[in-house]
């Protein structure tokens, strides 16, 4: 019970915020997107920071999830539940295929193959004709009503925001648990030294594929949640720039640490609000500078800075 308490408290707090913001449409919308970014950053952190895979396909899977649920529900006419399951299965199948192919490649070639995959996905979206809606994407759909015990209801407003909060928490929970298990240690071991990891009995190729698949499927799940935030899916939302942004979030926050992913995602998502009055829409300039500075001076990111400060000053206070 005590172990579940923090999770329940977090859920309660996040849902409370959802209801507090219910009359502020813009902020509610930003809150939803922020939570989705945090979920994506957590997954990307597990993939890049913990398992050491530089894969640029994370955002593509977010897009695959979003498009899959929309196409299966509104173009193929499947029930939402079926569409969700099929969509996740599609993410898993694609991830396994890319993962198997990519583990044959060493080092940075994984990044290149996944980058090519992500770009190819965008081309397919843009040229997909009636199925994907082309460059304009698909719009004008609404989350279908759910049937539970004979009663129909639709998740709207703060209820849908709460659902996103639960998706985020579930994502966090999965990665948190995995990280604290032998599986997470095997991932870190592969990141630090694949040869030694194999000598300890870790099946390096298999573990890499599993990590890639799990993180990609969860990115797909977040994408499904996103599909009903703006009620439109179109190619530019899933561009390559976004995965760079995820990379910046994770590195600036502190790669390999869940807290780092959360802090980095929140910071980089919120920063434009502060920066826009100062430099217009050029916040990426600041991101780039902070990124370079992080690589040069603090590769362990803000969480590392925090640890250091606490080690130096915090003992007495804490």
């Amino acid at each position, binding site marked *: 019970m005590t172990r579940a308490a923090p999770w329940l408290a977090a859920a309660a707090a996040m849902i409370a915020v959802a209801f507090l913001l219910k009359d502020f449409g813009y902020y509610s919308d930003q809150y939803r997107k922020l939570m989705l970014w945090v979920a994506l950053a957590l997954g990307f952190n597990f993939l890049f920071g913990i398992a050491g895979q530089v894969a640029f396909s994370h955002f593509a899977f977010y897009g695959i999830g979003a498009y899959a649920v929309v196409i299966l529900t509104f173009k193929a006419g499947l029930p939402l539940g079926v569409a969700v399951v099929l969509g996740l299965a599609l993410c898993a199948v694609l991830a396994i295929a890319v993962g198997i192919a990519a583990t044959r490649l060493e080092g940075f070639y994984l990044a*290149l193959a996944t980058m090519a995959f992500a770009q190819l996905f965008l081309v397919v979206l843009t*040229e997909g004709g009636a199925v994907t809606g082309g460059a304009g994407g698909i719009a004008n759909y609404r989350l279908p009503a759910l049937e539970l015990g004979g009663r129909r209801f639709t998740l709207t407003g703060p209820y849908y925001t709460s659902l996103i909060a639960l998706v985020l928490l579930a994502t966090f929970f999965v990665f948190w648990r995995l990280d604290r298990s032998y599986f997470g240690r095997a991932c870190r071991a592969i990141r630090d030294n694949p040869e030694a990891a194999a000598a300890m009995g870790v099946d390096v190729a298999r573990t890499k594929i599993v990590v890639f698949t799990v993180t990609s499927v969860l990115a797909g799940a977040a994408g499904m949640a996103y599909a009903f935030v703006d009620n439109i899916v179109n190619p530019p939302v899933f561009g390559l720039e976004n995965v760079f942004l995820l990379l910046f979030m994770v590195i600036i926050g502190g790669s390999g640490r869940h807290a780092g992913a959360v802090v980095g995602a929140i910071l980089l998502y919120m920063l434009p609000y502060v920066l826009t009055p100062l430099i217009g829409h050029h916040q990426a300039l600041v991101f780039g500078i902070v990124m370079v500075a992080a690589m040069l001076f603090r590769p362990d990111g803000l969480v590392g800075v925090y640890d250091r400060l606490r080690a130096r000053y915090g003992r007495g206070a804490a």
Partner: protein
Amino acid sequence: MSDILELLVSAASSGCIYGLVALSYLVMIRPTGIINFAVGEWAAVGLFAAFFLLTNRWLPLPYALALIAAVAFTGLIGWGTQRIAVRPLVEKGAPILGPILALLGMLAIFRESISLIFGPDPHNLPAPFGLRQVSLGPFAGTPRDFFIIGCTAAVFVGVWLFFERTVWGKAFEAVALNRKAAALMGINLRRVTVAAFVGGAAIAGFAGVLYSLTAPRDFLMGLPLAVQGFSALVVGGVGRVEGAILGGMILALAEQLTARYADQIGIPSGMSLGVPFLLMIVFLLARPTGLLRPKEAAA
């Protein structure tokens, strides 16, 4: 038939630009192992520098001189990039991923700086020649196409001669083959890294200048060009100068053939945009060394 020949000329001219970008990567990867995705932004730097030099009112430069100055400026930017994002990390003994990621940060900095200075609108250089059709033997194309092909040929011949005929080119190759033995010869590894980045940036800047002759480009041009150039490199092979141009040509030809003929077999012609990625995936999986293997593999 003339249709095909015209397509060949136009494919060759865009293949040249891909080839130059691939060459820019190659010049840096060989001695340092660093894949620098900021090459696309360097191309943009070259383009916008040339644009600035040709259109400003205070310092009117002759056309050719402006281009040369823009390329030199990009080389200087390359030195700065290396100094900020590569050398400190290499000397700290950071893994190779460190500079690669720092260079992604530089990419964002370059892109946004350009957009800050020049705004979001696309620009192109005033065309050096008219746009009339000219024929060279059986080949027909615009003077622009032939200008691009000629300039690229000159750059490749120059770089090829540098690698094959000069002792400094051999020194580059020696560092690529065996860093430690190269250091024992007295080759200054730091200086080779600097030269690689300055040279790589100048080549990328030149590619950017040529790229803008074909269509107006905006500050977002860098990353797509960087990805296409890298696809060309993967296709042609990382080991040899000739691979870069070969890869560029194959890529451009495949793109233009798809764009022109895919409709006839029921594929949307826009899918030609996916050709580089498809080629890249195929080559990464089937032949990671590219078409031309490095010489050490052949020996």
